[in-house]
């Protein structure tokens, strides 16, 4: 198994764990953290391809990851603000009970 394959498998496993957290847990904060974990897995892939795969310009992978981290930070800030707004409206964070907008 080459290093690139190892990195890709690690990233796939991390993505799956994030997916399981986001799907199985019912707390809004944990769902958000699962999504962050999936974003991290994607970043891990960028770095793996940057290091172990030739072809791109030298700095491309690193810059890609920097931008992704910045966007993830913005997403987390808005997401946690939404969590606090949700808590104010229904006094808990259970996503099963957040059905007020259901059609």
């Amino acid at each position, binding site marked *: 198994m080459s290093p690139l394959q190892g990195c890709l498998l690690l990233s796939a496993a991390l993505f799956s764990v994030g*997916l399981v957290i986001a799907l199985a847990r019912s707390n809004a904060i944990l769902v958000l953290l699962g999504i962050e974990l999936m974003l991290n897995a994607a970043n891990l892939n960028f770095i793996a391809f940057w290091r172990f795969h030739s072809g791109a310009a030298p700095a491309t992978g690193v810059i890609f990851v920097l931008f992704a981290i910045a966007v993830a930070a913005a997403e987390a800030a808005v997401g946690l603000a939404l969590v606090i707004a949700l808590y104010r409206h229904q006094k808990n*964070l259970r996503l099963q009970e957040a059905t007020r907008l259901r059609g």
Partner: protein
Amino acid sequence: MTFTFLILAVIILGSALAAALRPNLIHCALLLVVSWLGVAGFYLWAGAEFVAFAQVLVYVGALSMVVLFAVLLTRQSRAELRVDAPETRRAVWAVIAGVAVSGVIGAAVFATKWDPAPVTAPEVTVRGLGLELMGAHAAALLLLGVLLTAALLGAVVLAAPDRPEKEEKS
């Protein structure tokens, strides 16, 4: 495939899996911080030092604080930190979905013929990164600043309490 990589993989996946199983919200958040630290270690191992430091600053430093603030702001008593265990049916389907996704990706990884890896990491200095960011990617950098500002304002608007009508008129 080095020993360091295996240890990092165990740290990353182990703490993430433990976070998926713990019932206590604070434990989950702290375990995920450990997982993010492991990812930063992976970046160091791969030779992307600047990204590793950015990861530590943004995730381990800032994001974990924001998450802990959210946890502490949205609870009323000590007992509420225990989130109820996921419903069995949903948990089973979630695990099936996760295994399916990693199975598909893993099969694709093994089925693809990869070029042999370059021996040394691409040479990237912080100076080179700065020049690249301010040169070829300057427009994207400015847009990112606008995005962060908009996200900050949006977060404040969403999280601020609704003011009663009287106050707004005065």
